[in-house]
């Protein structure tokens, strides 16, 4: 237990200083401090690295097996290691997007949202600051994970793999961009929905369940609709498709989903009592 100061309290600080930063820079700095001062962030990073390593290894083993079985028609041949990295995101993204999710849901769950909004009363500023921190962190984490995936996949692929420097770096950067946008999408949805479970359910539906169900029957109209969903748009971007739209359009579409989620979150934050 602590002891109270025996001298009468004086609240005059040694020197009263004006704010050293603008409100937006301050909000970003605060979000950064908050992110790195809770345990869940570190667990998330560890889990993401393990998921990436395990998924990359598994996909690499599948590729090797497919090349060595008897049916030459499904033989994928020699694979660039970057394909394994981007393929591994399908699972790994659900771990990484927790960073965006927790940035909001943990605040509501623990009541710290009230402190946050007292420090930065502008709802738009708070959400944008969170988006910047989540976006930057998930991008950097994405680069790291890309490195992990490539490092694991390359030796497993052996003679069936290649790792051209430029191509691999491009795939890793694309993976990082994808994860950053999905992280911001999770953040925006979390701000709109508040609860972790509900948000995660909606994210699963948007990224996987709904587009998968639409693609399943193989009806062109439904498949085209599925192409509009964020996860599908992201995978068209990652695989460098030219059909049904160019890869850059896939990136743009995914970014639009992230921005729309942020706007929805901003609207909900503004209306809701904290």
């Amino acid at each position, binding site marked *: *237990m*602590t*002891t*109270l*100061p025996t001298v*009468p*309290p*004086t*609240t*005059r*600080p*040694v020197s*009263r*200083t*004006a*704010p*050293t*930063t*603008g*409100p937006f820079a*301050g*909000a970003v*700095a*605060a*979000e950064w*401090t*908050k992110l790195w*001062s*809770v*345990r*869940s962030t570190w667990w998330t990073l560890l889990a993401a690295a393990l998921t990436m390593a395990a998924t990359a290894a598994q996909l690499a083993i599948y590729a090797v097996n497919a090349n060595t079985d008897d049916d030459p028609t499904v033989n994928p041949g020699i694979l660039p290691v970057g394909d394994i990295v981007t393929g591994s995101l399908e699972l790994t993204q659900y771990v990484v997007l927790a960073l965006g999710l927790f940035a909001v849901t*943990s605040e509501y769950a*623990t*009541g*710290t*949202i*009230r*402190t*946050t*909004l*007292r*420090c*930065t*009363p*502008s709802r738009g500023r708070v959400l944008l600051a969170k988006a910047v921190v989540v976006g930057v962190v998930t991008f950097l984490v994405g680069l790291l994970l890309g490195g992990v995936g490539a490092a694991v996949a390359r030796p497993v692929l052996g003679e069936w793999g290649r790792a051209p420097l430029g191509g691999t770096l491009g795939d890793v950067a694309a993976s990082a961009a994808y994860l950053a946008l999905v992280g911001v999408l999770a953040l925006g949805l979390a701000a709109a929905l508040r609860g972790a479970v509900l948000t995660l359910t909606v994210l699963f539906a948007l990224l996987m369940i709904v587009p998968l169900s639409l693609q399943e029957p193989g009806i062109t109209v439904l498949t085209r609709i599925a192409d509009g969903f964020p996860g599908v748009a992201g995978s068209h971007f990652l695989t460098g498709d030219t059909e049904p739209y160019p890869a850059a359009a896939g990136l743009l579409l995914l970014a639009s989903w992230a921005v729309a989620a942020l706007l929805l979150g901003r609207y909900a934050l503004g*209306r809701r*009592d*904290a």
Partner: protein
Amino acid sequence: MITLRALTKRFGTATVVDGLTVDIGPGQVTGFLGPNGAGKSTTMRMVLGLDRPTAGSALVNGRPYRELRHPLHEVGALLDATGIHPTRSGRSHLRAMARSNGIPAGRVAEVLDLVGLDGRAADKPGRALSLGMGQRLGIAGALLGDPPVLLLDEPVNGLDPDGVRWIRRLTRTLADEGRTVLLSSHLMSEMQQTADRVIVLGKGRLVADAPLAELIAAGPAASVRVRGPEPAGLAALGARLTAERATVTAYDTDGLTVTGASAGRVGDLAYELGVRLHELTPVAASLEEAFLELTADSVEYAAGPAGNEAR
């Protein structure tokens, strides 16, 4: 300076704060009183921009809170439920707050020192903090930006007697430095010792807004409680006191409550009349009595007979 103008908050059909107009000025401790559900916390949350008013306005230094760029430099607050993340340390909690408002990192150590949280306590994760430590951390957060306006919701909750005395001195010092201090508490005796002025809410409406002394004077006056084993003697004493213009009412079955005569006078008369007494107690006028009288019509959950007796 806190300015409330026709401030109203409705949740569905329930009106929690109802047309509240009041100014809370600097240089004094303003007590915020009201039964549970009177709207005290909701009012504070609207001042802090957390809840959106249904109608009317709540201004801090002339501006709505949501428009403040560096609010911690203008308003410090301790809310009833001080949220801290279970795995974040108190120090990190304060550091994030400081950074958000451009407050130098050195100030964090300063306020921790000020509220008596040493290094070990400050580095404990939120879930390991006792209620009292959490309260002190909340007060440290309120003082972080050295604000001219402070809102403290139930600050003595969970504090030991030392802590309670410390809060009392702190709020006094803060007010003497010319700050606006709004303090809510359900502890009447605490309020009586701390507040200069009292605002009383009942069912979301302003019931009273007056200097503490005035409010106490307007409530039930000081009285003397007398008890004795001889009903006839007490009756004679009562008659004699009534003749001296004191007001006498029966108290339980064997006692009297006398207002308008001092305990000394009552004792002298009893001696003169030869009436045996078992009790002669002066009962001071108190904020609690005044408060109960003021809010008798507006308690949200009326107490049963047992509660009435306790009064």
